[in-house]
């Protein structure tokens, strides 16, 4: 498994190729790439600033990865998440899973991105012509994670 938190962009083709190289048991690679959209709340987005909690981010991503491996027979997992200033069209996140068979790879990939969105300590600030504001967590993301039996993390 591999988890990377970085400012720099990544090459999707090269990363996916690395998942199966030297692993003849891999029969399926499934990936998710998250991108910066150009519109938010009907306004053009100028930029996105991604903040994270160094240390906890890596720890949390490793825990999510371990949970996926506990649930599915996976050959390997790769998660790359960017931080810093991004603009529309930029890649934000790559989640890729290699397995012997496609079903495990599809399910684990969706599980990983759903859990990541509700647990990994990243926060987005959106900059539009109306100014900057912090993005609120979405109930739909909580619902997506809840499908997989994600534990509650509220403190209140």
């Amino acid at each position: 498994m591999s988890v990377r938190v970085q400012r720099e962009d990544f090459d999707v083709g090269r990363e996916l190729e690395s998942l199966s190289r030297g692993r003849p048991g891999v029969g399926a690679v499934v990936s998710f790439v998250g991108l910066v959209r150009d519109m938010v709340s009907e306004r053009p987005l100028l930029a996105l600033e991604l903040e994270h909690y160094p240390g906890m981010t890596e720890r949390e991503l490793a825990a999510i990865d371990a949970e996926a491996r506990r649930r599915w027979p996976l050959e390997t997992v790769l998660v790359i998440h960017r931080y810093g200033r991004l603009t529309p069209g930029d890649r934000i996140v790559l989640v890729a899973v290699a397995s012997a068979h496609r079903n495990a790879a599809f399910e684990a990939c969706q599980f990983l991105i759903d859990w990541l969105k509700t647990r990994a300590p990243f926060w987005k600030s959106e900059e539009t012509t109306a100014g900057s504001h912090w993005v609120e967590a979405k109930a739909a993301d909580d619902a997506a994670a809840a499908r997989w039996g994600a534990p509650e993390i509220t403190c209140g």
Partner: protein
Amino acid sequence: MKLLYFAWLRTKLGLAEEEVTLPETVHDVADLMTWMRDRGPLYAAALANPAVIRVAVNQIYARPHHPVTASDEIALFPPVSGG
């Protein structure tokens, strides 16, 4: 005890981290939240709604009854929005 703040909690409080002496009345996360709100109007306003505050003790999500000690790194932040 080291306190860290992220996202809008950081911008509302105007600081990313601070070192505080653990008060004798604070034994767990719930006590800490109560004490924090009494530190002044800025803290009271920022922490008014516990539903939008997450707490991590030593980089692990913590529930209200999780114990806290003077050597802990405690982070307070809003629900995450990555991915």
